[in-house]
């Protein structure tokens, strides 16, 4: 990639001198000595040093000029170029954050991807905050249970982070994991996995307006460097501070674009999952009003995945409506006192609760927990019927091999048949959901 001198952050005087001397791309300056640049362009020795610093820092600055600070520019060189295969392997070696809603995880290929930005949109009361809190707890599930054992930073702009609720969700997850303990490693992990430790690994910041949010995002890269175990950053919500007090929309768009760049840079450089929530707004189009995510059209490019939560009658539906790796799909979910869960829990025999499949299957690699594995298969066949998209199937397979041993009992086709009726039932729900969407 050739970076033009005019686009890098140098003082205008230096830039014009360099251009006048015939330099147009940063790469042309690479390998020159400071005195050479002084002689060629007629700049001072100090300016020449700055130029060289910019040349070295240029590539790593591409992501977020303002986000990385000095550390990103000077001391860390540009990241090496990767082939698509290397990237794929890297992505597959990373676990995802599961949501405890197996249907949603299945459609996302195992859960929310680490290193990407995911936006959760929805009208008030659809469960955006609930999903955020659930993920904040789930990311801490110890590695031996199939989790990430990570920490989380929660940026709360609405004041809706209520500890009472986090304690509920954390308590349910701890209880769930304690029921799955099978070997010594897990037993040891459980001694330190408690509601208290979960709460001490959630780092909370309250931002009262958009300036405070921008300030926090400027300082967060340093915080993330100090806390290398952080795997998730939640901003609940981006919309709230940016929708109050903004008369000048061009300014808002500009700030949001910068913010999006910072988030993406942070997600990749610190290997954290970004989860941001957004509100909905009404747009009039052709005389009809329509609910769309807020913050405008250009913001829509910021997140990698957009998830829409909504009510349909008495059912809660989650729709993936933007994702490069997954087909658009709609799944049902519910919010119980324990947190974000699959919708059809009550229809299942109690021994086969699908809500726990990710964790159960992690346990299942040790013994062959047939019912858990069968359960997942039924979910997948349901997902498969939903979309006959081949690439989607490939994607899912890829993730399965990444998840590795988890799926050792995948080939038990018999279980799939035995669960066919359950899957059929779900499909019935799906088509009902589809009709509702059409209408």
């Amino acid at each position, binding site marked *: 990639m050739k970076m033009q001198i005019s686009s890098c*952050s140098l003082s205008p005087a230096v830039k014009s001198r360099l251009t006048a001397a015939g330099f147009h791309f940063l790469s042309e300056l690479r390998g020159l000595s400071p005195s050479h640049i002084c002689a060629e362009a007629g700049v001072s020795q100090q300016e020449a040093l700055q130029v060289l610093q910019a040349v070295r820092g240029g590539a790593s600055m591409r992501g977020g000029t303002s986000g990385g600070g000095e550390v990103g520019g000077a001391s860390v060189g540009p990241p090496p170029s990767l082939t698509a295969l290397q990237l794929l392997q890297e992505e597959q070696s990373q676990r995802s954050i599961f949501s405890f809603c197996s249907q949603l995880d299945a459609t996302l290929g195992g859960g929310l991807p680490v290193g990407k930005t995911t936006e959760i949109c929805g009208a008030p009361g659809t469960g955006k905050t609930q999903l955020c809190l659930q993920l904040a707890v789930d990311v801490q599930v110890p590695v031996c249970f199939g989790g990430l054992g990570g920490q989380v930073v929660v940026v709360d702009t609405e004041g809706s982070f209520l500890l009472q609720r986090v304690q509920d969700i954390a308590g349910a997850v701890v209880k769930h994991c304690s029921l799955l303990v099978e070997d010594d490693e897990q037993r040891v992990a459980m001694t330190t996995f408690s509601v208290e430790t979960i*709460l*001490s690994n*959630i780092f909370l910041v309250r931002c009262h307006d958009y*300036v405070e949010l*921008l300030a926090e995002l*400027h300082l967060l890269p340093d915080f993330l460097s100090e806390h290398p175990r952080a795997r998730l950053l939640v901003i609940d919500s981006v919309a709230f501070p940016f929708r109050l007090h903004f008369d000048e929309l061009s300014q808002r768009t500009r700030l949001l674009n910068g913010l999006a760049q910072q988030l993406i840079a942070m997600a990749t450089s610190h290997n954290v999952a970004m989860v941001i929530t957004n509100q909905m707004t009404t747009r009039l189009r052709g005389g009809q009003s329509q609910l769309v995510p807020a913050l405008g059209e250009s913001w829509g490019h910021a997140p990698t995945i957009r998830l829409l939560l909504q*009510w349909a009658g008495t059912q809660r539906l989650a729709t993936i409506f933007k994702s490069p790796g997954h087909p658009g799909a709609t799944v049902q979910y519910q919010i119980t006192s324990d947190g974000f869960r699959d919708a059809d829990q009550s229809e299942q025999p109690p021994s086969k609760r699908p809500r726990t499949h990710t964790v159960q299957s992690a346990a299942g690699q040790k013994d062959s927990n047939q019912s858990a594995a069968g359960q997942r298969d039924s979910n997948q066949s349901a997902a498969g019927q939903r979309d006959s998209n081949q690439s989607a199937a490939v994607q899912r397979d890829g993730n399965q091999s990444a998840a590795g041993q988890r799926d050792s009992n995948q080939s038990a086709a018999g279980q799939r048949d035995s669960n066919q009726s359950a899957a059929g039932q779900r499909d019935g729900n799906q088509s009902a959901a589809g009709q509702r969407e059409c209408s």
Partner: protein
Amino acid sequence: MDWDQLELHPRIISAVRRCALSVRAVLCLSAPDLQRLSGLSRSDTQQLLTAAATACRRHAPLPALLSRGLQSSLRLSVGCPILDELLRGGLPAEGVTELSGESGAGKTQLALQVCLSVQYPTQYGGLNAGAVFISTEDSFPVRRLQQLIRGQSCLRSDVPPSLISSLNFSDRVYIEHAADLASLQECVSRRVPLLLARGLVRLVVVDSVAALFRSDFLASDWLERNRQLLTFSAALHHLSREYSTPVLCINQVTDVFSSSDSLVPSSSTGTPTVAPALGLAWANQVMVRLMMWRLQGTVSRGDQSSAPRRLQVVFAPHLARGGRGAGVWREGVRGLTETV
């Protein structure tokens, strides 16, 4: 915030002074823009941005465990153990709670009751301060308030009678009337902050938000209405978190014609299809949304009888969707133990 308070090289401070930028304005500029404006080097600009960001940040991210026991976990009791159980202790000490319902559902009754329960010490679920009641609809029901005060010893059997008689309830309920939007904005941006800053009150009740915003605007003015609504809501949020004060907003309801509306779950219990007024713009601003219904029939308690009501949690970050039956009695609103 002044530049001199920041730990920066005088050269950087004088450069940023030259272009007359405030600390907050600096954060709204990208690094290259800032460099262009101030003529500073790249590393100086980064120092400047970091210093400005540090000045704007109240604290570094704190473990959630440490915030336990702080103000945010405080709850304001509504004065009835059954309803408090539904609300998991009462209204959150920080945040905007909305209570909507048809006329006669008992919204104002509950609001008046909270105005009294806030005056108890914290061990009895109060916040040990008075309340300000902003009335926009009709005159403040002062007689009913007196009746409720007389009924406190009956309603709050958990509180020692000597404590109840020592509290001067009616002296600590401040009443503001706002007949139009301008006076409402004036009230929440000037008069109420004064009361809060002096520690006289720790509860803000607005009865109702819908009245002025619904009446002062034509349908075609919805953009202007939303703008005003957001200004008003920003003021309420500011009050709530600056003084960690619960804000209770009473809202009217509006009929819902289309059942395919994805905003609210359609009720399967046969309750009328109404939704809180003011639409999505307002709903986005509300943390806890409660609704109250008046149901058919009568319930009785001692020699009194009342139409049964239902208090319903529509959404809240910490509450399950659910409801409780309630009755409005002489001494106040009480939850019903049996389901209605």
